[in-house]
């Protein structure tokens, strides 16, 4: 623990520069856009540079601390907010501010025609502040404040175009789903407080021996945190908000709903990983949650036609993969994949932003096609991003995904699941690429054109990182003790890409033909793939939908029936009249008074 002044000043700078940017941007909301844009971009860049300056220190294994305030002092408990930075924090800080800056820069071009740019940029800065606070806090309570703050900013930015009811509904959905997770977080904090009366990370970890004697408490705490993770990181039962969250502007989707906020759950588990691995059942819960999420996301991405929703589901799937890595006990691999994912998914999102911008808001991939000719830069960038995500060696996704795959080989069934998952990834990505970039143009609008320079530079940087990021950083994450049998994995991924990608193309082509009802021209390979891959797949999905989905739907309907019958009495109480609402509140207060003041008369 080091609290030298220099590093605490750096920490303050990293945290508070974006806040300053937000304050200034909000105060200067009525001024010209240029000033606000400069301020917000400059503060985030400053934050990024500061975290780079402090990085050598942290990489050496030092832990920097900085005091903020004593928030609340109660007998027995003291809630103080402070900052702490170690390697994990550094990774998050660099990722948040780096991707954040690129997205700011991209937004200059993307939002050029929007009248409320100032509001947009101030929200972005506020988001970065809360996200930094989330990762830099030295206690769960500070993380929780950041956790709520990023939820708020996510809500504000999803509903940024607040004239459409659908956007507002999506924003509310995201907010409410996140609140469900937050309940888990609060329960975990409460139980921890009751058990060891501190929420400070280092003190929690110091209290681990005490906690180990009370496995039930440990289980409840980690379960609560897992629910929180499921909410924020869009895991299995609570993932549904993320696809809807695509109602926001595309750069926001890239920053919040792909690269940073949704990784808060991964951060939380990594920060308290000792707790999770000590608690009974927690690791296995994480593992199964991740598997369910990864598969639902992967399968859903295959059938989507909305460009952004495809990437949203693919984000869900990749987050599931990170949680799988966490469940397997590989925190470093999860973080590695998180960083790589931030690169290539931000790249893919910004690329799709380019397309949507060029097509004036068109998001349906059935109305695209042939864009490789008119948008060569975007096509190259997104091709790189997709290849990186598929795990083509030696692009970034290869290192991280295959590290996870390598660990999974020690757990028999899981490695097969992961290979199927990679096939799914390759399949939907190639299908999407075919729809968007190949074939004949199906747009109704005028000729698309590439975005401005400020939109292309971030894409170029992210593209560069997606190519070499894994190669540069893999030494940081993959400890020399862990051997990765490269050759085998290289062959596996090459085979997967080589076989599955044409299938994706073929399926896309088939869907297009169905879509256009034009006569089909089949080549030999297409027929081959059609018979051996596409038709079985369609058959399988139809079977699943008939036999499986109906059962599931019936089961869920049953639950709904039970719930609605059970809630009938409660619903009758909910008259919507303010008087009755106040009356219930007052009745509750009377009951509390009765208990607090002891015996009646």
């Amino acid at each position, binding site marked *: 623990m080091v609290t030298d002044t220099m590093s605490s000043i750096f920490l303050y700078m990293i945290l508070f520069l974006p806040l300053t940017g937000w304050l200034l941007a909000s105060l200067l909301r009525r001024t010209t856009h240029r000033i606000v844009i400069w301020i917000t971009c400059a503060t985030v860049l400053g934050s990024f540079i500061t975290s780079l300056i402090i990085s050598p220190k942290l990489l050496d294994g030092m832990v920097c601390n900085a005091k903020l305030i004593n928030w609340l002092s109660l007998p027995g408990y003291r809630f103080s907010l402070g900052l702490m930075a170690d390697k994990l924090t550094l990774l998050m800080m660099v990722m948040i501010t780096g991707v954040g800056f690129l997205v700011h820069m991209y937004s200059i071009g993307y939002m050029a025609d929007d009248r409320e740019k100032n509001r947009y940029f101030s929200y972005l800065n506020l988001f970065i502040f809360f996200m930094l606070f989330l990762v830099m806090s030295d206690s769960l309570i500070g993380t929780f404040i950041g956790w709520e703050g990023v939820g708020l900013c996510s809500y504000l930015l999803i509903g940024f175009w607040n004239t459409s009811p659908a956007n507002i509904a999506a924003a*509310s959905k995201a907010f409410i789903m996140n609140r469900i997770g937050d309940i888990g977080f609060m329960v975990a904090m409460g139980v921890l407080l009751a058990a060891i009366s501190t929420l400070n990370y280092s003190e929690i970890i110091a209290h681990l021996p005490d906690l180990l004697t009370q496995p039930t408490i440990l289980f409840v705490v980690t379960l609560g945190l897992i629910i929180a993770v499921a909410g924020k990181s869009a895991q299995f039962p609570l993932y549904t908000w993320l696809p809807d969250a695509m109602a926001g502007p595309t750069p926001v989707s890239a920053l919040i709903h792909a690269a940073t906020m949704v990784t808060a759950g991964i951060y939380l588990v990594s920060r308290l990983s000792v707790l999770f691995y000590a608690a009974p059942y927690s690791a296995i819960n994480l593992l199964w949650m991740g598997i369910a999420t990864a598969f639902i996301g992967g399968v859903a991405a295959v059938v989507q036609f909305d460009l952004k929703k495809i990437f949203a589901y693919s984000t869900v799937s990749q987050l599931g993969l990170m949680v799988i890595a966490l469940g397997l006990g590989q925190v470093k691999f999860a973080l590695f994949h998180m960083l790589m994912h931030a690169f290539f998914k931000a790249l893919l999102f910004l690329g799709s932003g380019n397309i949507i911008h060029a097509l004036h808001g068109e998001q349906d991939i059935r109305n695209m096609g042939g864009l490789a000719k008119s948008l060569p830069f975007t096509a190259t960038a997104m091709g790189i991003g997709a290849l990186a995500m598929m795990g083509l060696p030696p692009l970034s996704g290869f290192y991280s995904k295959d590290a996870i795959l390598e660990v999974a080989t020690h757990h028999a069934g899981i490695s097969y699941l992961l290979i199927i998952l990679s096939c799914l990834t390759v399949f939907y990505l190639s299908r999407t690429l075919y729809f968007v970039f190949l074939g004949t143009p199906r747009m109704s609008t005028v000729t698309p054109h590439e975005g401005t320079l400020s939109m292309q530079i971030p894409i170029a940087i992210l593209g560069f990182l997606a190519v070499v990021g894994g190669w540069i950083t893999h030494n940081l994450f993959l400890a020399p003790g862990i051997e990765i049998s490269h050759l085998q994995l290289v062959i596996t991924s090459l085979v997967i890409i080589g076989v599955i990608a044409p299938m994706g193309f073929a399926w896309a082509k088939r869907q297009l033909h169905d879509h256009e009802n034009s006569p089909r021209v089949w080549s030999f390979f297409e027929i081959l793939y059609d018979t051996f891959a596409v038709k079985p797949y369609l058959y399988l999905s139809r079977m699943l939908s008939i036999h499986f989905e109906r059962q599931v739907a019936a089961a869920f309907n049953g639950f709904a029936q039970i719930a609605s019958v059970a809630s009938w009495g409660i619903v009758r109480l909910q008259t*919507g*009249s*303010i*008087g009755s609402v*106040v*009356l219930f509140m*007052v009745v509750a207060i009377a009951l509390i008074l009765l208990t607090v003041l002891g015996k009646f008369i």
Partner: protein
Amino acid sequence: MISSTHILILSSILFSIGLIGVIIRRNAIVALMCVELMLNAGLLGIIGSSLTTRDPSAQILVLFIMLIAAAEVAVGLAIIVMAFQHLRDTDLDNYSSMKW
């Protein structure tokens, strides 16, 4: 001579009357007035409790609460006026468009 017990009893009676008013009245302005009455009952309670010690801090506290209450009334009335302009109605039960 009055004792703090008397004042506290008066305070709780006033509070209950205000509470009944908030629940049963539908007019937004009257409901706000009832809230004011409840607030005043609370202030009276503070004064009543401080009678024994004569701590001047209690009076200062009451003064500050009055200040805040004044601000609150101003904002509340502005909102009611605005809502009235929207809906041509002061019935609280009809202010339901914010309900989800």
